[in-house]
């Protein structure tokens, strides 16, 4: 007879695993009502701290070679694969069937690999060299928008989370994610995967807590560039759009997505949190048509 050692489920901010600064917790339960864990009830200040970490990580992460970002996303998939059994167990605890849990983990791993491959390719897909009139070289390329706040899907505790994080960071952004409120365990365990995957601290920050309590901070922070919400509560959507107007955040609602299907992955998800930058430069045209020489 051996006493099981229980895991403390903590937040993931700036590459660290702090408890919520508020000291609060809530109890994650399964459908039957059994207690699964005491989970941090993240606060406004946790979000604030996570935003600082995320902003601080933008320059380094977006400055990495796209190839390197691809390698790190692949590494996350490797780490997830190696802990496949643990994730399945945890999903079973959270009421998924064996088959559904396996599918959730397998697809999550595959999805990370899918986006790992996109890291150094989507730019080529969405860039353009524009044939402007006049002697100028003109090109448009996607660039990360910066810090993205994400309220993750509620019913897909791992796959949904991975599906919204991966395209955001594949594109060079950093993010603050609020995990599924009802099924938060996988998100925290996924943070442990991230922590062992060469992902720089601050690129992904994961909070647990109440959507209702935190959603306004996710959408009104003046130093967040875009926000993603994955549920279809229209009053929440309306509030997010309204608050986002404060600094003209880019707002995306992924409320009709089936994360298990093909529509759950696409380079267009990466494009959502990209800005298109167009650069002009004169082309010296000596002895060419119209040149003065």
């Amino acid at each position, binding site marked *: 007879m051996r006493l099981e050692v229980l895991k403390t489920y903590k937040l993931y901010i700036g590459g660290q695993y702090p408890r919520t600064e508020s000291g609060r917790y809530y109890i994650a339960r399964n459908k039957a009502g059994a207690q699964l864990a005491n989970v941090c009830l993240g606060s406004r200040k946790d979000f604030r701290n996570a935003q600082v970490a995320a902003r601080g990580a933008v320059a380094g992460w977006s400055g990495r070679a796209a190839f390197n970002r691809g390698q790190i996303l692949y590494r996350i998939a490797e780490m997830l694969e190696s802990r496949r059994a643990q994730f399945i167990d945890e999903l079973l605890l959270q009421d998924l069937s064996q088959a559904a849990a396996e599918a959730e983990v397998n697809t999550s791993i595959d999805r990370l690999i899918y986006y790992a491959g996109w890291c150094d390719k989507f730019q080529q*897909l969405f860039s*353009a060299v*524009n*044939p*402007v*009139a*006049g002697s*100028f070289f*003109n090109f*448009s390329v996607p*660039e990360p*928008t910066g810090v993205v706040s994400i309220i993750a899907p509620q019913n897909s505790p791992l796959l949904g989370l991975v599906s919204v994080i991966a395209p955001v960071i594949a594109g060079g952004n950093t993010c603050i994610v609020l995990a599924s409120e009802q099924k938060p365990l996988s998100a925290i365990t996924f943070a442990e995967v991230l922590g062992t995957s060469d992902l720089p601290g601050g690129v992904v920050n994961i909070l647990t807590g109440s959507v209702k309590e935190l959603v306004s901070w996710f959408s009104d922070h003046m130093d967040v*560039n875009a926000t993603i919400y994955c549920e279809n509560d*229209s009053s929440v*959507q*309306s*509030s*997010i*759009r*309204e608050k*986002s*107007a*404060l*600094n*003209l955040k*880019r707002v995306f609602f992924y409320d009709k997505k089936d994360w298990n299907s093909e529509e759950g992955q696409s380079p*267009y998800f990466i494009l959502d949190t990209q*800005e*298109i*930058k*167009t*650069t*002009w*430069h*004169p082309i010296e045209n000596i002895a060419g048509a119209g040149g003065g020489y």
Partner: protein
Amino acid sequence: MAVTRKKAAPKKSSTKKSNTVKLKFDTGWSYDPAPESRSAATIKPQYDLFINGQWQKPSGKKYFATTNPATEEKLSEVADANAADVNKAVSAARTAYDKVWSKMPARERAKYIFRISRMVQEKARELAVIETLDGGKPIRESRDFDVPTAANHFFYYAGWADKLEYAFPNRQVAPLGVAGQIIPWNFPLLMAAWKIAPALATGNTVVLKPAETTPLTALKLAEIIQEADLPPGVVNIITGAGATGAAIVSHPDVNKIAFTGSTDVGKLIQRSIAGTNKKATLELGGKAANIIFEDAPLDQAVEGVINGIYFNQGHVCCAGSRLYVQESVAKTVIRKLKDRIETLIVGDPMDKNTDIGAINSKQQLETIHRYLDIGRREGAEMWESSCPLPRKGYFCRPTLFTNVAQSNRIAQEEIFGPVLSILTFRTDDEVIEKANNSPFGLSAGVWTDKGSKIFNLTRRMRAGVVWANTFNKFDPSSPFGGYKESGFGREGGLHGLMPYVDIK
């Protein structure tokens, strides 16, 4: 005129003492007035609303005057559309969308847009004259820039209409439906083209509202659209002020809002559509940094600064209104700028030699004057051209401020006038940080001879358009739009299609 005066033998020395070294641009040889003729333009005394292919009286029976800001004379009066008129226009657009435009083969749609482009070219002179009369911009600009660029924009997007499957790899796209479009007074016809052309090419129908101070070229465009036999209701052009715009934004049957204007109104729009599924493109304000390094081609950089801030009286959202000059060349650059500014001709917008025309409205002139006061009060040093100003009309001398600090309001807020704030810097990192230190992010400029530095700077500028060793260049094929509070969505180029389609 001293052309025949006898010249003394060359002086032994033509060297002047350094304190008298100054170029004089008030020359004996000057340009006579060269006014463009108004006869090319027909302006009716009154314009109704262009709804469902017909000119319809406003249901509130109200009209408002549009005046020439250079003379303060009334040019015409245009209808003031109320919510009922907006509703009529939107339902005309909806019917045209459902019954005609969404069912028409794309290549036919393309041909209509090509036809509009051609007709704009045919009527270029008339459109240019009206644009200048109604808005105050120099005829040289409306003739050489606004009107041809507008025609080109239609031509560019016309060609996309039947090629959309190539624009979005591996995806099918569908139009959104009815687009409500609200445009500003700084480039009235060009902005109408920027809005209407991609919307039509992607299969949407349109309700467009021009700005209340500059409605005439949009109404002329309505005449062209009528002449081009575009099916009724595909494009509806209605006039009015803010209330009309608000009615378009809040109309439940509008699927898409495209707005160009101030950041404040952009935010209002985003709030007012918060509870809906409407998509939005916002092209808003800016406070662009234009950065000159010591190794830059200085004379071309100076010209770029001039084009950057004095083009269209500075009524340009991407105007290079914050000039950052490396300290080692600051004196030289400022002297060159002042010399160049002294040669700018301010006056009658209809004169072909005018470089800076009339400020668009009395209200805008007051705004500019308020900022000039703020700048002086903040301790910046103001300098303005010595040019005379016409007695009537709304005019402002090209002005620059030196000794400006990053914290000054004239370095942070959009003035939207011919006012340049000059700041200095020492290192690359310093200027990158200062340039990005703004809630705006529409455009930026970089001047240096060093290629690797250009790419460092252009990459690190948080702005949607970066001009390196040039400024204020536009092209239908080149996407335009902002980062941060300068808005979202792109206009122009392949990327300009995206805001008007649903990607499936």
